[in-house]
């Protein structure tokens, strides 16, 4: 892909942030299930 190094770096950082937010969301949903479902 025609992506310059700074652009690729920025994309990688955004990618890490996106995945972190998803992980936190999935963990929160998991907690909701485990903590409140008998």
């Amino acid at each position, binding site marked *: *892909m*025609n*992506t310059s190094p700074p*652009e690729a770096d*920025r*994309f990688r950082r*955004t*990618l890490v*942030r*996106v*995945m972190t*937010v*998803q992980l936190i*969301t*999935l963990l929160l*949903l*998991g907690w*909701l*299930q485990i*903590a*409140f*479902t*008998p």
Partner: protein
Amino acid sequence: MHPINWLIVIGWIGYIVIDGVRRAKGTREIEGYFLANRSLPWWAVGLSVMATQLSAITMIGTTGQGATDGMRFVQFYFGLPIAMVILGVTLVPLIRGAKVYTAYEYLERRFDARTRSLTAFLFLLSRGMSCGTIIAAPAVVFSAIFGWNMGLSVALIGVPTVLYTMIGGVQAVTWVDVKQMFLIVGALLAVVVTLLIQLPVSPTDALHVAGAAGRLRVYDFSFSLSNTYTFWSGVIGGTFLMLSYFGTDQSQVQRYLTARSVDEARSSLLMSAYWKIPLQALVLLIGVLVFTFYLFARPPLLFNPAHDRAVRAALPAAYAELESRYVAEVTARDLAARDLTKAEDTPAKAVAAQRFKQRVDQVESVRSEALALASQVTGQQSKDVNYIIPRFVLDHLPIGLAGIFIAAILAAAMNAVAAELNSLATASVIDFYKRWVRNEAPDAHFLAVSRAATGFWGIFACVVATFAANLGSLIEVVNRFGSFFYGSILGVFLLAMIPRARGTGAFIGLIAGMCAVGAVNFGAPSVSFLWHNVVGAVTVVVVGVLLSGGRAAAPAAT
């Protein structure tokens, strides 16, 4: 509905139409009309992408699903962030860099005109129909609740949307989307706060009760091809569906083609990757909280008021008997829920939870009988999932907030429809009229044709909506329309990234992909439609590569 609520709804629609029409200023050529001269900031494009997906079906159908089925529907979206990331590094730079108006235009540069025309035709067919169902979903509900005829409900959503989309083009669509997204998210948050205030138990107790009824079960790790809402269906099938939708559907591709640069186009997609799952979880949580609310306040036996009136008139004695049983069961469920919130130690909680679950099942059993009765009397499918939230909003939200929420439902419908109309007009004009009928003409001519095409698709969608009232579960209908073609079209775009793939392979592969989906749909109807996308995409790639022979074709156009 209270006059103040109507004033809010009408005021908001008027404001949106005026604001959208104002965006027509300065639009003199089709690049401005269809692509905003590729000048929009990433955050506006990102909000527009999110607004396009958040239709009225999400506002009434998904919240209703939260109330009846719990949170597990959120698994459907697990593939979305993965798809966005893949698209960010693959298709977005390819299509955005090709300086095209439509995703299908790129396919002619890479393959040939017939592959472009077939994919564009499939898009027009599936999106034209689904646009009608997007209007029909809230229109059916409004008709039943306010006693309007279907034509009036369709016109309330369709006319303002067609007006601002036709005159203002993509500028109007995007900036109206931005404003409506704030209204929608604000309305959702306000409902959550109101619900928490109105509940007679603490938020923690409310969650315990909802959990005991199975409404907080999010994850299902079983692997089943027939179950749409499992972790694996969401991650694998969902990734393919989202790749197809965001990567090859003109209604989405056109959003990021309006961005200032490739980087801004990617950022706009990543905004959805950030917020889609949390937003969807919030929407479902509202449904769960409404379910909890109705544990302590008597819910209607039938949420669809039209069916309620029909059964009451046709079978008064049977309905009265059902209603008295319902009241008794609901009262017993209320007491069981309160017992559960008061239980102190773990064994007592387990016993109370089991009793409560039995009471929930009893209430649902009586409701099933009432739904069957409604079905028998009206001759229509009597699932009333889509009526739960509108009834709650009108019966229990304070004056003003109810108007805001109804305006938000209309806003969601308008956003989704506007993006569809704009993209349908773009594909009609760019991929057919300009390609096959008249290649050269002044911009004023193409602009006039584009506005006429938008108007045509608006009328088409309204006609489909008027007759789509009885298409069954509307959420699934919309998704099913797309699933017949989505996977195969994605397969063609994947093929475009394989250097050796050629036009004939792509064209025959596309037809083979659709045949494979048709075979699975009719030969194995139990397979969930989410997997159709996987079948279609894989078939196109395999057939396309096999038919393209061993030589590498010309490199992909950029």
